[in-house]
């Protein structure tokens, strides 16, 4: 969607400030008054970027969840541990989307140059480290003669533990860095909040526990993982909703119209349906389902699986709504 497509009432120009819900704010800003600045939607980052952020977080988070909860028997795919492979594939997909979105994809390695100042560079390095170390770690599934196994961290050999630790750190960076990338976008005030990286971490963890639950239930392997994973799911869902709530309050109180226009667009404007569906179906209902599952262990499997699916989908939808609500004050109408 381009800037010219903005038609909803929340997006107004400074020229029409008398009709704007943000009139008082705009009038108080001398530069807006003098130069007739406009509120425009950012035109570049939409669904592909949402997919990139979501896939990266989900993949890296799934790897982390497997090792934090010591999930050893979630099944295999082509002889490799399913959850680790899912993690690697999802991060790989995210990386591929990122590369394909570049204006010059053949120059992608140049993106590793400035980790001292750019979060995209740090994230790109983390992606490569995660993919390489993670791929080596799961190799014993194909090459049994290698001197380590693909067991989870606590049960693994020292060499494997080193690899898991490196991949784990890279995964932690991967789930955080998209939030930092958004935070760095100084002009898009909806994203310029310290709560955005926290939100990305919470989203990644909740959706990756959801995916892990789904995989375990589908493979009829939930067993002893039910309680710890359900509790972890509940905690991360509560954290996700709590951080989202604080984030909206934070952005609603920022000085200047762009952040508030973004919140308006997200909560009541063009992206409201995506936002509310993702919050209610993606996080609130899974929370209720998890509570019910904890209270009634007999029906826990299907409930947790449904909650997992909803959370995974809802997380993607939230990313999309948040990106499309990015609004900046610009001299260009």
């Amino acid at each position, binding site marked *: 969607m381009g800037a010219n497509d903005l038609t909803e009432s929340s997006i107004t120009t400074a020229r029409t400030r008398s009709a704007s819900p943000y009139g008082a704010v705009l009038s108080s800003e001398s530069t807006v008054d003098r130069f007739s600045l406009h509120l425009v939607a950012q035109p570049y980052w939409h669904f592909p970027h949402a997919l990139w952020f979501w896939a990266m977080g989900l993949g890296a988070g799934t790897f982390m969840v497997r090792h934090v909860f010591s999930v050893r028997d979630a099944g295999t795919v082509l002889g490799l541990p399913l959850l680790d492979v899912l993690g690697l594939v999802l991060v790989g997909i995210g990386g591929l989307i990122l590369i394909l*979105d570049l204006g010059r994809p053949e120059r992608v390695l140049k993106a590793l140059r400035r980790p001292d100042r750019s979060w995209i560079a740090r994230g790109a390095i983390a992606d490569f480290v995660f993919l390489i170390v993670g791929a080596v770690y799961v190799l014993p599934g194909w090459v049994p003669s290698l001197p380590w196994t693909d067991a989870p961290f606590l049960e693994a050999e020292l060499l494997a533990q080193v690899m898991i630790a490196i991949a784990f750190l890279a995964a932690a960076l991967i789930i955080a860095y998209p939030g930092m990338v958004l935070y*760095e976008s100084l002009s898009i005030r909806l994203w310029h909040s310290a709560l955005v990286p926290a939100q990305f971490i919470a989203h990644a963890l909740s959706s990756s526990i959801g995916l892990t639950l789904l995989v375990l239930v589908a493979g009829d392997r939930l067993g002893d993982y039910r309680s710890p994973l359900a509790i972890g799911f509940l905690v991360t869902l509560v954290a996700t909703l709590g951080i989202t709530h604080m984030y909206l309050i934070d952005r609603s109180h920022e000085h200047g119209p762009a952040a508030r226009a973004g919140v308006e667009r997200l909560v009541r404007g063009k992206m409201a349906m995506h936002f509310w569906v993702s919050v209610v179906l993606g996080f609130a209902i899974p929370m209720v389902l998890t509570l019910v599952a904890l209270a009634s262990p007999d029906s826990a499997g299907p409930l947790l699986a449904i909650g997992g699916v909803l959370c995974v989908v809802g997380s993607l939808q939230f990313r999309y709504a948040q990106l499309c609500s990015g609004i900046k004050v610009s001299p260009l109408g």
Partner: protein
Amino acid sequence: MTRKSSTTTRPRRWGMVIDLNRCIGCQGCAVSCKIKNNLPEGLWWNRVLTVGGDEIDVVGGDVEHPSISFLPLACQHCAEPACLPVCPTGATYKREDGIVGIHSEDCIGCRSCIQACPYGVRVFNLREPERATSHALGSIAVTSGVRGTVEKCDFCVDRIDAGALPICIESCPARARFVGDLNDPDSEVSRLIQETGAVQLQPEMGTDPSVYYIPVQHRSPRQTGMDFIANEPAAYQQREITEMLAPR
């Protein structure tokens, strides 16, 4: 360039002051920039926006109180550029004299800088460049129109380094633009900023732009050359229509 000015120990910081009272919206700076930098079709490093009406060169306000002024807009060459820290390759750089540039051969086209820039002055070459002429125009020192990369005003760094004025300043018929050292309190730009209360665009972003604007002080029709329209709107319009329809 790191010349020390005579009255200050700080290194030179190139800056520009644009007097919006003088700008007549002729687009001369935009066109000369486009030619000098051999910009492909659809890309402008320098634009002159109309403040007033909804379209370019269209008067705003109402019939009794028409209003129009212009806002020349290009890279603000910020002291704290928002585009700089987000560039993953180091393609965006800032010289010691304050000029912010792009090494196009290092740009991967991630567009993070476009997202970060509060001024909307960076442009992206989405496709292979098309130019109106079959041959290159302008300075051979400038690289522009590389598909898949971001570009923007470079403060005519080739001209500045050769001791010449940026082309937008040289081509401005209204003499609305001034260039100089912001760190030198005796420079023309520093004096103008001090005397006229020139302001930066969106200072709340904390980017400390090096381009200052002298705001339009009085938007009266007389100053904008439209007093006749304001005083006799109906008569003016009628006369204009009559003239248009008159046989030649």
